[in-house]
C-alpha cells in the first residue's frame, strides 16, 4: 500500500506492507517493523522496537487528525500523479485568512498602493484582520464591499504588481 500524506504543504511518501502480525512501514528510506493494536476505534497502541507509541486518529470530511507525541497534526491524503499538488499558497496572498465580515475597504479600482498598505479590514470573532499589500502595485478589482460576508480563502483584491 502506498500513500502520500500532506501536512503543512509538505508531502510524506509512505509504503506499508502487512505480513504475519507485523506492519512494515517504509518512509524516508527507513523501514519500521511494528506491531499494532486498535484499542478503541481510532485509538492505536503501536510497538516500534522497544518503544510503545500511542496515537489517536479521527477522520474529518477531507482530512485526518492524528494525535501523537502529545500533539495533534492535521493531514491530508494526496495522489501522486501530480494532479493535486500542494498549492503555492503562501506567495503573494491576498485571500482572506478567515471567514468574517468586511468592515473597511481602503482601496478602489485603480488605487495605487505601496507594499504593506492596508487594503481591507476583516472582522471575525471580535478581532480585526488587516489585508496588506504584498508589493507595490495597482488595484485591478475589489471583490468585496463593506459589510459583505467573506469566506476563508476568497480573494479580497486583485492587485497588479508595479
Amino acid at each position, binding site marked *: 500500500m502506498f*500513500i502520500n*500524506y500532506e501536512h503543512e504543504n509538505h508531502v510524506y511518501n509512505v509504503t506499508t506492507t502487512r505480513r504475519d502480525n507485523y506492519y512494515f512501514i517504509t518512509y524516508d528510506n527507513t523501514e519500521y517493523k511494528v506491531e499494532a493494536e486498535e484499542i478503541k476505534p481510532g485509538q492505536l497502541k503501536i510497538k516500534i522496537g522497544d518503544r510503545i*507509541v500511542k496515537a489517536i486518529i479521527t477522520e474529518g470530511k477531507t482530512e*485526518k487528525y492524528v494525535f501523537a507525541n502529545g*500533539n*495533534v*497534526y492535521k493531514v491530508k491524503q494526496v495522489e501522486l500523479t501530480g494532479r493535486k499538488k500542494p498549492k503555492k499558497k503562501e506567495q503573494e496572498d491576498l485571500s482572506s485568512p478567515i471567514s468574517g465580515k468586511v468592515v473597511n475597504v481602503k482601496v478602489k479600482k485603480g488605487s495605487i498602493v505601496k507594499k504593506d498598505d492596508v487594503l481591507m479590514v476583516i472582522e471575525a*470573532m*471580535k478581532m480585526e484582520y488587516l489585508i496588506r499589500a504584498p508589493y507595490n502595485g495597482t488595484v485591478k478589482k475589489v471583490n468585496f464591499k463593506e459589510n459583505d460576508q467573506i469566506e476563508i480563502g476568497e480573494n479580497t483584491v486583485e492587485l497588479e504588481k508595479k
Partner: protein
Amino acid sequence: MFKKVLVANRGEIAVRIIKACQELGVNTVAIYSDVDKKAPHVQLADESICLGDPTPIQSYLNIPKIIKVAREVGADAIHPGYGFLAENPDFAHSCNDISIKFIGPSFKVISLMGDKIEAKKTMEKAGIPVIPGYHGAKQDNKSLIEEGKKIGFPLLVKAAAGGGGKGMRIVHSEDRLNEAIDSAKRESKSAFGDDTVFLEKYLDKPRHIEFQILADEHGNIIHLFERECSIQRRHQKIIEETPSPVMTPQLRKKMGDTAVAVAKAVGYSNAGTVEFMIDKNLNFYFMEMNTRLQVEHPITEMTTGIDLAKWQLKIASGEKLTIKQKDIIQRGHAIECRIYAENPAKGFLPSTGTLEQVEVPTGPNIRDDSGIYTGMKITPYYDPMLAKIITYAENRDENINKMIWALSRYIIMGVTTNISFLKKVLEHEEFKKGNITTHFIDNYFKDRTVAKDRLPVDAIIALAVYDSMHKKSQEVVRYKEVDPHNPWKHVGRWRVSGQEEK
C-alpha cells in the same frame, strides 16, 4: 440566598456559574442562541431559554430580550459572567429597575471603572500610582498625536471602554500613530459602541500583575493575592500563574493594600480585579479595575482554597464576608493555560470548524473549565477560547512539568488550537526561569510563522498502520481488476471504522 439565577453568558464561564449556583441550592436559567442549542451550559442548567439569532447583539448582548426572559422565568438575580454584558452599566441599571439583583458592583462603579480615563483620574486623586499618559477629552487625531509626542514612544493607544486587549494598539514610532488611532477607534466603536481612546506610556520590561479582591456590601474588603498575567499574545493573556515569580512578601503586601484601597476608594462590592503594570525595578502602576469575575480566577481558587464564584453569589445576596485577611493563605503554585481555536503559525488567526474529537486530561490537581464537546461547531460568532486548563502543584517547577503533561494529553481535533504553542512557551528556558514580560511572545516567538513543525515519524507510522488496518481488502481487489496502472484509487477512500475486519 437567591431562589433562581439567570446566567447571562455562554461557554465555560456559564458552566462554572451554574455549578456554583446548584451547589448552593440555587435554581439556574441558561440563555442561548440558536447555534448553542446543545452547548454544555444549556444541558446543565435547570431551565434554558433560546434567544434565537446567534449574532451577539441579537442574543447575549441583547439587554431588552434578556431582561424580558429574566422576568418571565421569575429570576431574582442575574449573573453576567465575563465579557458580553458583565461590565455594561446599562444592563446593571436595567436589572435594578425591575428589582432583579445584578451580581456585580453597583452600576455607578461599573460605569466609573469602565471609563478608563475617569478611573485613572479617580485613582490619582486617591493617591494610587498610575502610568503617565493622556486621558483627555480632545479626541481628534491631531491632538492625540501631539499628546503622544509628549509622552514619548513606545506608547499605547487604548480604548477607554476597552478590555481584554480589544481596541488596543502599541505604537513604536510617530509615523504609525495616526493609523493606530484610527484602527483602535474603529474596533472600540464596533465592540463597545464608544470610540474614545487614550494614550499611555509603554513600560520597560513590563509585567502584568493583578490582585484579586472580594468586597461585601457591608464594607469588608479582602485581597486574595496576585496573578501574574504577562504571557500575552495580541494583548490577550494566554498563560497566568500565581504566585508571580517576581513577587516578594513586601511587594505583595504593598500591592495588596493598594488593591484594597482602590476598591475602597470607589465603594466596591463583589469579586473584582485590580490590574497593575510593574516595571523592571518593581515600580507598580494602577492600570484598570475589572468589575467582574476574571477568566483566570481559578488559579486564585486553587492557591487560596476560596471559591470566588460562590462568594459572588453570597455577597450579592447580602451575606457578610466571613474570611479575614489574615486567614487567607497562598499555598503552592497554580497555572492556567487558555486553549484557543487559533493558529499561532498564522498570527494567532482564529480557526473555525467542527470539533471531531475532544479528550481532556484528568488527574489530581488538574482542573478543566470548558464549554465544548465532541461534535460542537466552532463558529466565528463568539470568542475562540475553547477551554481553560488549570494545574496546581507544590512549587512552580513541578507545576510547569505538570501543565506540560496535561497539555500533552489535551486532545482537540477538528480545529487548529494553540496547545502545542502553549507547551513551547512553558518549555522555554526563560519562562522556566521566571524571566517573563508582556513582550515575551514577541521577543521569543517572532519566528513562529517560519518554524513549522514537521510531521513526526510516530505520526506517520500511526497513519500508515491505521490506513492499513482500515482499508477494505475488497476494494483493493476491485481496483486491481479495473485499473492495474493506478495504484492510488483505493487509498483515497476512507472509512469511519474498521468493523469489516473484526
